[in-house]
């Protein structure tokens, strides 16, 4: 029994991870070149994804105009977890996701749990984002050509359609690019960020014309629990703050820069989100949000009474959501690649095509699964699943910080959480608070999903784990007997 526990919590030595990723080949010896401004821009760019473009229609009916507080709450929790993430990323010098960090600090079983969460954070969010894209595409078609894709081909079955075709096409296009080995350059990335911020500013400025205080009179129709439930849904739109942490090795003076950059990004993003939501809830009564498609564009059209602002907004959304889908799909394939490398998934997932230098079978499998999700499942459910996955992954990271402080107090850390242990504890409490107010069905499905991942681990990963097969000894930094 003791040995089983040992196996379940065996950890991958950091030195081995560093070798695998070629950290010693000089490829990853990066100069510390990123300053505070650049790092904050990273955080803002990665966070202002696409959630804000469609999350209001899910969150406002739950919280009413008090959805503003939901943004503050979700933002605070996201900020705390991002700070914890930064410490773990600096202590475990491996590329990758919280899966790699969990494998190195907490052990194999928790790593699988985190991987299950990451599948939601990346895979399911890719599906959610693609569905949002199809809404804005439809809006754009309607405004430009007076033509709409029929509901049967642009809605999930639960919402009266057959199949969400545009979402599936989007995923197909992104997959082709990924297989060909295209990657988004820093310049394209910067342009996409500008487009996203530009659209939101456009919405705020033009939407102000529709200000009607009456819409705010019933500010908290569903009380505190409505606010937390909405925060759970909204959390989805804060994913990305942790991008700041992953740049750790290239950051100048990380101890000071890191928390400041996270703070600046957080404040900027939250301000922008709050302005958008204030303008939105003041423009129309909260029950109208329910089921509203391409929400921001629709509100803008009502407020201004002309179609061009809505068309512009929809066009911007269509362009920027495309790039987000590409990046999220890419992330998903690389996480699965790392897992296959560790023996947790079949070899097929880490086959690299010699010509294109991309994991082709992996990419195709990911695309097919995500396309099915995007085609068949409604967006609010996808958004909530993404949120719960991300929240739990962040929860584990926060616990990981505390565990690592206990087990390896002397480990060199490029960045340490300020106000330890208050910060990780607050982060943990915040995550749990938001999770427990999500819809029961979401939590239930999530538990089943983690259960499936664990069953997979015991049937496959347990035996095939490279760590288990090669009997590697030596835990993290060889400190333990």
């Amino acid at each position: 029994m003791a040995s089983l526990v040992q196996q379940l919590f065996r950890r991958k030595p950091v030195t081995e991870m560093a070798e695998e990723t070629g950290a010693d080949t000089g490829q990853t010896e990066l100069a510390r070149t990123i300053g505070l401004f650049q790092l904050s821009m990273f955080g803002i760019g990665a966070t202002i994804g696409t959630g804000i473009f469609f999350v209001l229609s899910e969150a406002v009916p739950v919280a009413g105009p008090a959805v503003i507080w939901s943004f503050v709450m979700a933002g605070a929790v996201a900020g705390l977890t991002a700070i914890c993430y930064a410490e773990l990323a600096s202590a475990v010098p491996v590329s990758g996701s919280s899966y790699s960090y969990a494998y190195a600090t907490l052990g194999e079983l928790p790593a699988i749990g985190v991987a299950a969460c990451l599948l939601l954070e990346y895979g399911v969010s890719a599906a959610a984002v693609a569905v949002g894209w199809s809404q804005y595409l439809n809006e754009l078609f309607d405004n430009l050509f007076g033509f709409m894709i029929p509901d049967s081909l642009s809605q999930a079955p639960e919402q009266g359609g057959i199949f969400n075709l545009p979402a599936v096409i989007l995923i197909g296009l992104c997959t082709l690019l990924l297989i060909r080995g295209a990657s988004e350059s820093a310049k394209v990335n910067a342009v996409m960020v500008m487009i996203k911020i530009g659209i939101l500013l456009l919405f705020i400025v033009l939407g102000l014309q529709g200000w009607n205080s009456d819409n705010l009179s019933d500010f908290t129709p569903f009380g505190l629990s409505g606010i937390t439930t909405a925060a759970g849904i909204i959390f989805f739109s804060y994913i990305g703050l942790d991008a700041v942490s992953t740049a750790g090795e290239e950051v100048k003076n990380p101890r000071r820069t890191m928390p400041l950059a996270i703070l600046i990004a957080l404040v900027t993003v939250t301000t922008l989100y709050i302005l958008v939501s204030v303008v939105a809830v003041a423009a129309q009564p909260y029950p109208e949000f329910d089921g509203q498609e391409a929400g921001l564009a629709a509100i803008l059209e009502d407020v201004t009474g002309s179609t061009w602002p809505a068309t512009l907004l929809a066009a911007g959304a269509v362009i920027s959501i495309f790039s987000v889908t590409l990046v999220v799909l890419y992330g998903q394939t690389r996480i699965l690649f790392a897992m296959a490398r560790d023996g947790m998934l079949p070899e097929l997932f880490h086959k690299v095509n010699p010509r294109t230098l991309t994991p082709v079978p992996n990419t195709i499998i990911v695309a097919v699964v995500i396309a099915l999700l995007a085609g068949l499942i409604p967006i609010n459910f996808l958004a909530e699943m993404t949120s719960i996955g991300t929240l739990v992954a962040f929860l584990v990271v926060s616990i990981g910080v505390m565990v690592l402080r206990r087990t390896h107090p002397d480990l060199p850390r490029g960045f340490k959480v300020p106000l330890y242990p208050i910060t990780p504890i607050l982060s943990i409490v915040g995550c749990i608070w938001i999770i427990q107010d999500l819809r029961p069905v979401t939590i239930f499905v999530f538990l089943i999903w983690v259960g499936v991942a664990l069953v997979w681990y015991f049937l496959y990963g347990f035996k095939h784990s490279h760590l288990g097969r090669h009997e590697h000894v030596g835990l993290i930094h060889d400190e333990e007997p």
Partner: protein
Amino acid sequence: MTMIVGYAPDERGKAALHLATMLSRSSGEELVVCVVVPAPWLPGMARVDAEYREYLEKTAEQALDLARSYLPPDVTATFTRHSARSAPAGLLEVAEQYDASMVVLGSSSAGAFGRIVLGSVTDRLVHSAPLPIALATRGFRIRPETKVRRLTAAYGGSASAQSLVLAAAAIAAKFGAAIRIASFAVWSRPPYTTRLGTDSEDLVLQEWIAELTQAMQDAVGRVRERTDEVPEVVETVIGQGESWPDAIEDIGWDEGDVMVVGSSELGPVAKVFLGSRATRILRHSPVPVVVVPRGAAEDLADQE
């Protein structure tokens, strides 16, 4: 066997002559320096263009005289002029006539010094020739006595790449040069918005390198098996970079280096047809390149 040098009395021709000298000195093959002149229209008619033709022939002779003066004494060469409808067609006709092993050409004068730039003649030849084409970089010059020291075979990992390696080994053996097998990994850092860290692509790269190194070792093994005269050094190397020039520069180049690239699998079997990667390698190579058509690669591989 002989090598055909496509010559024009300008800077391009000089680079081609220098490359041909280096190749001929290494393999001991004779050179045929060839100037292609336009064929007369409608032969048999009254010689209305007699003066023009005389002028052409005189220019060609002058060009050949110039070429003769450039060539060092330790290289045997014959000089010829050939009438043909077009320069590429003429060169191929001469190559067939002499049963040549290679056609040597210079770069277009429209590109950067030290790089290969395809002009109208070279472009057509690298897309249609049934025999290997050697291309000099623009302004290519050798020191006296320079020979080919090392051949670098650009390896793509496919089945035809295997026969290209054997063909390159055969050419290297002929030149008395060492051989190295090179692959190029061109990749870029993923955007920070993936939140996996900017080095998340390294894992894929390492996997690719591991697989390719294995394949290249196998290719080396086959070279050792098949050829009696194994070129003295057989090494494998992978160039990495965020762009093609970086990746090609990464493996290091010396005087006396020549690169060998194969034709794409998409083109007709017997002829050169440059694929997208071969084109990029050609464009950024700092050393002369020999383009081997797939059919010729198989023949060369079978010779040994």
